[in-house]
C-alpha cells in the first residue's frame, strides 16, 4: 500500500470569503470525519470552488478557520499543508515525465532518491500506470493523465485529498469508471477527501455525504439518500435529479399522516407530520409514479412521450396546468409508447412514501 495516511478530520468554522462586497462564501461551518469523502455540490457561483481553494490555502479566508485534525491551519502557507489535489485540467507538469511528476512532491519534502524511486513505482502501480513511467504527460490520454495526477497526489501521503471537478474533462464512460477507481483508492487509503463538482451524479456516486451549496451558504448536508429522497427545499429537490412539485393544503390527519388536498385536484398523504403549516409544497420524484387509464389517483393530460433508453419520460399537465413528469421503466421490451399516446387523459398514482414536503425557496 502506498499511503497509510493517518486519517485526520477536517472542520471549518464560520468560513467566509469576500470578493469586494460579494460574499462568495458566507459563514460555512462543517465537520468532515476522518476518512470521509464529502462532495460540495451546487450551481456555478455558489462558493464551492472558493471553499475548496481556502482549504488548500490558495485563497486566504476573510473570516473563519480551517482545522485539520483539530489543528488550525488557516494561516499555514500552501506548501506546508500536506494536501493532495486533483485539478480539472490535471495540471501535470508538461516538461516532466510521469515518474518525475509523481516524484515532485517527495523531492520537495527532501526525500532521498533511493527512497523516492520505490514510492513512485508503488504509486504508479496503484493507478495501473507503471509501464508509462517514462512518458511525457502529453503522450497520455485524459484518463491516464488524471490517474498520474492521482498518483502524484497520494504518493505524498496527504492528510487531505481535494478534488476540483476532477473528471469534468473526461467523456462519460471513462468518467464512470474513474469515479469508481478514485473512490476505491480513497477508501482503501482512508484519506479524508473533499470534492467539488457540479455533476450531481458524480456527487451521489462518490461521496459519503453531499453538501449542497447556494449563494455561499450550506443549503443541505446529508448522505446521498437523504439529499435525494428527503430534500429540505425546492432548490435541493430540483438541483438533484428531476422533481415534480405539487401545491396543496393540509386538510387533516388520517392514521397519523397529514392529508393534503392538491390544488390540481386529488388528495395525497404525507409520510410524516408536516410542521403545522396549512399550505405545503410536495415533491414527488418522476420514477415513483405509475400511470393508468383507470380513474385512480390524480388526473392528467399527456403532452409528450420521450423514449430515453432505460426509461420513457412522459410529460403531462395536471388539470390546473401544473407540469408533471413520470419516468416509466422500459422493462419488458414493451414500449410505453404503445400503451399511451399524446393527448390521452390519464391517471397518475404513487405511494404516499414518495411524497415529501419541501420549503418553497
Amino acid at each position, binding site marked *: 500500500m502506498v499511503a497509510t495516511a493517518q486519517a485526520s478530520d477536517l472542520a471549518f468554522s464560520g468560513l467566509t470569503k469576500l470578493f469586494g462586497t460579494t460574499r462568495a462564501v458566507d459563514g460555512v461551518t462543517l465537520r468532515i470525519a476522518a476518512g470521509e469523502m464529502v462532495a460540495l455540490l451546487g450551481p456555478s457561483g455558489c462558493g464551492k470552488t472558493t471553499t475548496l481553494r481556502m482549504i*488548500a*490555502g*490558495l485563497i486566504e479566508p476573510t473570516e473563519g478557520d480551517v482545522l485539520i485534525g483539530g489543528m488550525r491551519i488557516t494561516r499555514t*502557507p*500552501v*506548501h*506546508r*499543508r*500536506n*494536501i*493532495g*489535489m486533483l*485539478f480539472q*485540467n490535471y*495540471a*501535470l*507538469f*508538461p*516538461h516532466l*515525465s510521469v515518474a518525475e511528476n509523481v516524484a*515532485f*512532491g517527495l523531492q*520537495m*519534502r527532501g526525500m532521498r532518491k533511493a527512497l523516492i524511486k520505490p514510492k513512485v513505482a508503488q504509486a504508479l502501480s496503484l493507478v495501473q500506470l507503471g509501464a508509462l513511467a*517514462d*512518458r*511525457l504527460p*502529453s*503522450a497520455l490520454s485524459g484518463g491516464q493523465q488524471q490517474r498520474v495526477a492521482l498518483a*502524484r497526489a497520494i504518493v*505524498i501521503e496527504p492528510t487531505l485529498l481535494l478534488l476540483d471537478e476532477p473528471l469534468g474533462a473526461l467523456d462519460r464512460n471513462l468518467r464512470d469508471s474513474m469515479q469508481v477507481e478514485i473512490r476505491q483508492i480513497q477508501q482503501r487509503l482512508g484519506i479524508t477527501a473533499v470534492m467539488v463538482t457540479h455533476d450531481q451524479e458524480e456527487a451521489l456516486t462518490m461521496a459519503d455525504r453531499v453538501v449542497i451549496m447556494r449563494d455561499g451558504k450550506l443549503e443541505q448536508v446529508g448522505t446521498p439518500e437523504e439529499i435525494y429522497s428527503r430534500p429540505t427545499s425546492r432548490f435541493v429537490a430540483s438541483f438533484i435529479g428531476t422533481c415534480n412539485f405539487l401545491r396543496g393544503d393540509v386538510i387533516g390527519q388520517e392514521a397519523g399522516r397529514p392529508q393534503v388536498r392538491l390544488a390540481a385536484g386529488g388528495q395525497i398523504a404525507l409520510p410524516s407530520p408536516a410542521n403545522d403549516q396549512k399550505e405545503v409544497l410536495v415533491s414527488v420524484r418522476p420514477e415513483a409514479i405509475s400511470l393508468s387509464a383507470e380513474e385512480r389517483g390524480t388526473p392528467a393530460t399527456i403532452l409528450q412521450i420521450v423514449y430515453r433508453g432505460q426509461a420513457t419520460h412522459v410529460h403531462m399537465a395536471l388539470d390546473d396546468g401544473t407540469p408533471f413528469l413520470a419516468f416509466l421503466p422500459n422493462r419488458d421490451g414493451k414500449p410505453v409508447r404503445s400503451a399511451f399516446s399524446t393527448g390521452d387523459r390519464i391517471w397518475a398514482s404513487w405511494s404516499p412514501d414518495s411524497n415529501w414536503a419541501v420549503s418553497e425557496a
Partner: protein
Amino acid sequence: MTSRPLPRSVVGLALLLPALIFLVVFLVLPSVILLSYGVLTQSQGGDISLPLTMGSYERLVVSETYRRVVLLTLRVALVTSLFTALLAYPAAMVIAYGKPIFSRITMILVVAPLVVSVIVRTYGWQLMLNNSPTGVLNWMLHALGTGPTPVRVLYTEWATVIASVHVFLPLMVLPLSASLGRINPSLNEAARILGAPAWRAFLRVTLPLSLPGLVAGVTIVFSLTAGSYVTPQMLGGTRGLMLGVLLEQQINTSFDWPMAAAIAGVMVVIALAANVGVGWLAERHALVRAQRSGAR
C-alpha cells in the same frame, strides 16, 4: 472574351515581386559587395580589387587590440542579456499574472524607453553616469555617504551595459510575458500544494516552461547589443570599444574598407550564431528530455 483566373503561384509571385526587387537591389546586393570587400585587397590608392586574401580576418584574430574588441563585444552582449533577463522576469510576471491595471502600467513603463530617441536617451545616460562628482549617480552615491571617490562608469563597457539593459528591456519582457501567460496557472498551484515554496515552484515549473520566451528575448537582446553603435560610441569610450565603433573608425579614420568589411562579416556571424545557437541549445535540451522519456 472571358478572362481565366491566373494560377495562384503566379499571383503570389507577382505580389511578392516589388518587395523582392527592392530587397535584392538595396539589401542583398550591397551586403554581398560589402562582404566581398573583406576578402579583397586595398591598393595604396584606395582601389579595392583582387587578389583574394584573408588578411583582414587574420588581423582581427591575431591582433591583440582587435581580438580584445571582439571579446569585449561578446562579453557586453552576454552581460547585457543576463541582466536584462534578470530584470525582465519580475516585470513580465506582473504583466502576465498581475491585476489588469498593474499589468497595463508595467507594460507602459517597460516600453517607455523605446519611444525616446536613441540620441536623447544616450545623452541622458551621459549626464547620469558622468565620472565627475556632479554626475547624477556620483552625486547620489555621495549623498548616501559612500565616500569621496567618484565612481568611474562613463566611458567603460559598464556604461554601455547599463544603457543597453535600459533600452532592450522591453524586447526581453514582451516575449517573456507572452510565454509566461501561456503557462497554465494551475501548474504553479499544483507545485505549491505538492510542497514547493514559491521560489522552488518558480525554478522547477515556471522557469523551464517560460524558456521559449527567454530564448527569444536573449537572442534579440544579444544580437542587438553586439551590433549596436550609438550606445558604445557615446558611452563606452576607448575602454569600452566595441565592433560597431571599430567598424566606423576603419571607414572614417583609417579608410580601410576591407578591414571594415571583415568586421561587418564578424558581426553578421555573431548575430547569426546567437539566433541559431541559443535556439539550438534550448531545442537540444528539450530533445534530450523527450528522448529520455521515450515519448513520441
